[in-house]
């Protein structure tokens, strides 16, 4: 019993540490900007004891929604990545695997081309993201009569290529002065235009996707052993996997609809979470949520403060993610197979 106690204790300590780090990073995100805020001003606004009017406006309307959105998106992409990696039994899988990001991107880009209002652009991103996954899963089911892993991944690649061609076509048709820059910027991911209303529209969907992942977290981990083994252990593997994929897809599509296409988080953060909390899904999921949130807030704060212009998030995450990916490949490629 001492053994499991000490493991549980060290797990609690690392989670508490990650939670504290997230709070620090968020405070940093609140403080840094064209109008810097002191810790006293931030606390004053958050607790409502001593509301400095300018600090209040900055936090409530601009920086607050942005930092909270970044945290939510980071957590969502990291959790979705962790879920996909577990159900597909492959540490190199990420939310892009089923064409979610590409599909959502296509929907949003189409919305920009049609000159729709922001809310409609988000709704289209969301709808197309879900639609792409439905298409990929439907196609792989039709081809093999079962949710075979390799077929599903290949279908994801095929549909992803098709959607990519659609995005290219939209770019070609877009007005080069007005729409094209907006489309390009959006495809690289940005939180620059996020308002409170956008956040309030996307947050419920993200949280809704998170509920089954958290509630079923221990059982989801068993899917990593493969279908036959999981089923022989008493798990309804097919049904559980569908729930997990639907939940992770909902989270990814909502995140893309809110902030555009931001790669690498869903691939990289689950690995960091495994280093912090071990490979068990029920333990690495909370760690992935905290690390993903903190990482994204950090990246977004850097994106809006390291240069005079806003640096797209996708560029920063790629610069950080690519080396990490290479290290992962070098360390563990021998074990990984589809």
């Amino acid at each position, binding site marked *: *019993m001492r*053994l*499991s106690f000490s493991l549980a204790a060290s797990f609690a300590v690392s989670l508490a540490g990650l939670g504290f780090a997230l709070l620090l990073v968020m405070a940093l995100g609140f403080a840094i900007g064209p109008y810097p805020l002191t810790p006293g001003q931030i606390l004053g606004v958050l607790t409502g004891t001593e509301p400095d009017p300018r600090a209040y406006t900055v936090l409530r309307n601009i920086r607050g929604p942005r930092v909270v959105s970044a945290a939510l998106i980071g957590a969502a992409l990291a959790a979705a990545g962790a879920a996909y*990696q577990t159900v597909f*039994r*492959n*540490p190199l899988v990420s939310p892009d695997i089923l064409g979610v990001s590409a599909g959502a991107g296509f929907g949003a880009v189409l919305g920009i081309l049609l000159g729709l209002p922001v809310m409609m652009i988000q709704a289209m991103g969301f709808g197309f993201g879900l639609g792409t996954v439905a298409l990929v899963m439907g196609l792989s089911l039709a081809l093999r009569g079962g949710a075979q892993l390799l077929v599903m991944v290949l279908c994801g690649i095929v549909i992803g290529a098709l959607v990519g061609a659609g995005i290219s076509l939209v770019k070609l048709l877009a007005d080069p002065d007005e729409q094209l820059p907006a489309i390009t910027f959006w495809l690289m991911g940005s939180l620059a235009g996020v308002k409170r209303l956008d956040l309030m529209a996307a947050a419920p969907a993200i949280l809704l996707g998170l509920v089954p992942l958290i*509630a*079923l*977290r*221990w*059982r989801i*981990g*068993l899917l*990593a*052993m493969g279908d*036959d*083994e999981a*089923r*022989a*252990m*008493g*798990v*309804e593997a097919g049904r559980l996997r569908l729930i997990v994929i639907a939940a992770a897809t909902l989270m990814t599509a909502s995140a893309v609809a809110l902030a555009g296409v931001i790669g690498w988080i869903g691939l990289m953060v689950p690995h960091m979470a*495994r280093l912090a909390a*071990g*490979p*068990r899904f*029920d333990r690495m999921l909370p760690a992935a949520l905290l690390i993903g949130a903190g990482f994204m807030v950090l990246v977004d704060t850097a994106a809006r403060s390291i240069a005079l212009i806003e640096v797209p998030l996708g560029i920063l995450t790629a610069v950080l993610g690519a080396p990490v990916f290479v290290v992962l490949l070098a360390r563990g490629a021998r*074990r*990984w197979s589809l």
Partner: protein
Amino acid sequence: MEPVTQTRQPLLQAQGLSIGHGREALITGIDLTLAAGQVLCLLGPNGAGKTTLFRTLLGLIPPLAGKITLGGSDLALLGRARIARHLAYVPQSLQPPFAYSAFDIVLMGAAARLSGLARPGPREEAKAHEALERLGISDLARRDVTRLSGGQRQMVLIARALAQGAGGLVMDEPTASLDFANRAQVSEAIRRLAGEGTPVILSTHDPDHAAALSSHALLINRGGVVASGPAAQVLQAETLSRLYGTPVRQAISPDGRRLFY
């Protein structure tokens, strides 16, 4: 462990079973019984349908014809968790995509007894430790399974099956990829479990291994059952020659065991 009596019905029974994927039957006319204390050994050439038979018995794929009774109930009517409480599956190898500890793997056996939303608590953890102890591999608990030897991994999988608390074990070629010492360790564990009342059905490519380990044997080839019954009767040079389609001879070792070559 519940007391096991001879009068109790067998754990697993199959009658007139046809197995296969899709519509095409791989083997027809299988009858088998697995009761307390028995080790039933499944022999057959590659592609004969040994794994397909195991998957059918575990309810992972439906039989094409025939009836399977598990713990007194029709297998087709049992849910996944109920099946798992009767029969545990020990796959050929343990190759998880992530570096789980042996304890994490063994703890997974608790799934059959937990509801969907529940997570294992101290009781399940104690059970997992108990299973490791029963096999004498408590020292492996915190080790990364991807760094264990093939034999150690096999022992971890057996421990998981014990933690599952099932009445019987289905083992798919448990010793196929093991060296001599590891094979002896795993064989000894199987013998002990059977001696303690847990019946085991396993497949192997090695008739000597089958003769040394099993109480009963079932010989299958593409199409049908070649022989079935008590190991001493079934495992004969003449039947094995028919099974593998190549001449097999036998000798008796100084301690009275049959050896095939």
